[in-house]
């Protein structure tokens, strides 16, 4: 089995063989297809992301956005095609790839009966993070949950759970962040905290692929926008000189 010893982790930062790691972070999807039973959900997706890039994934419900994310984090196997993250194939080297990706989904993937700190402790152990205690409290501060660290997740509000879920996804300092509508349930303060964390992540060379339904948010947060319809990429463009109404028009047209 290929081991990834060359990716040494110290105080949470990941470096590859001495060179600054950021140039090494890349996510490449080639001809990815997925059908549930016999119903095609993804029809040959091609996509590449490299160090520091942020991509917004837009599309109607059932266009295949969530399925694409689930495949990249290794929760679902693709029916055809391939994808590799930092040179590792997501199916053959699934376990190493899971160290490199952080996932925030619709469900928070947390345990209600455990407290916020216990949850982070548990997932820290699962991701074999070295200094879990500091890492956990550091992240809890960053998402503004240091006061409710000892409360059970069941009693937390929807916004707090979403922030804790983001903290969980960042615990093992992944190279790539995959976020399924990260803003759900967040107030303005929550959105600012999330933006700060995402900025810090990309500064460190990490990539972000996130889905959203708010077009202005997509424009504001991402370097390029991709639109999915019935499992195919139907629009792809950098956001540098892209106006909101053009995005809205193509979105109407396409979905």
């Amino acid at each position, binding site marked *: 089995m290929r081991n990834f010893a060359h990716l040494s982790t110290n105080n949470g930062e990941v470096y590859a063989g001495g060179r600054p790691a950021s140039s090494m972070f890349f996510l490449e999807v080639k001809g990815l297809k997925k059908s549930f039973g016999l119903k*095609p959900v993804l029809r040959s997706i091609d996509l590449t992301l490299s160090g520091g890039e942020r991509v917004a994934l837009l599309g109607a419900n059932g266009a295949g956005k969530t399925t694409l994310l689930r495949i990249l984090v290794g929760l679902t196997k693709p029916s055809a095609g391939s994808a590799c993250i930092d040179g590792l194939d997501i199916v053959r080297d699934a376990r190493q790839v899971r160290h490199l990706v952080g996932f925030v989904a619709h469900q928070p993937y947390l345990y209600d009966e455990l407290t916020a700190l216990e949850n982070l402790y548990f997932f820290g152990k699962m991701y074999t993070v070295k200094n879990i205690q500091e890492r956990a409290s550091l992240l809890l501060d960053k998402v503004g949950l240091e006061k409710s660290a000892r409360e059970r997740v069941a009693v937390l509000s929807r916004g707090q759970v979403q922030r804790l879920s983001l903290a969980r996804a960042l615990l093992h300092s992944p190279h790539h962040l995959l976020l399924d509508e990260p803003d759900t349930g967040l107030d303005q303060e929550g959105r600012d905290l999330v933006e700060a964390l995402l900025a810090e992540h990309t500064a460190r060379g990490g990539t972000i692929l996130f889905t959203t339904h708010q077009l202005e948010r997509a424009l504001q947060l991402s370097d390029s926008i991709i639109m999915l319809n019935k499992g195919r990429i139907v629009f792809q463009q950098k956001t540098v000189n892209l106006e909101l109404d053009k995005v809205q028009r193509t979105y109407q047209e396409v979905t």
Partner: protein
Amino acid sequence: MALANRDTQTERQNSTIGTPGQNTRPPIASLALLTLTFIGMMTSIFMIFLYVPTDAIEGIPQRIFYFHVPIAWIGMLAFGVLAVASIGYLWKKDERWDWLARASAEVGTIFITLALITGSIWGRTTWGTWWTWDARLTTTLILWFIYIGYMMLRSYMGRTPASARSGAVLAIIGVIDIPIIYESVNWWRTLHPQAEVGTPGALPPEVVLTLMISLVTFTLLYSFLMLQIYQLQKMQALAQQLHANIE
């Protein structure tokens, strides 16, 4: 089993959209199997009722033996095929192995049910009781439960890869468990020993011949039924796929 396998080779086209009219070519394999089974059935009926001498001790009802034993063996064989197909599916992830597994499970269930019914009727005539806790019969009964469990599991989980994988795991666990069950029931039965069912011992040649003919016939029947259900599932998958591609 070999017949069913040979057939999968001839049908080796990939499972993309099947060209219309592809499945109207004359089903030679099915017809051949059907006629062979029919001939076999006729000869075995003739031999069982007329040719073979009535057993001295047990008399006429002993002739149920010639049906009961082959059916029970085929029921066991079907579970073996199910397990092999399941291992094939888990290893190759190819849907066709799953069709083979489901077909063998279904036919196996029918055969084991018939084996239990004929077994108890035969038991009724020889020992006067409908059921004896004999090691072989009890293991067959438990195998029947495992079959029913498999069919229920597959129907509850529907036609999804998850259901195929779960069924495969159950089949593998089951096939390893059968000999252990037989052994434990055998030890348990020593508590109240019962007459052994159909002592294989030294059987007169006519009996062995009739038994073999009957066994060949039921193997052919098994292969024929397997082939039908295999084709059935292939068409279902094809129809489902076409439906999916329409919207």
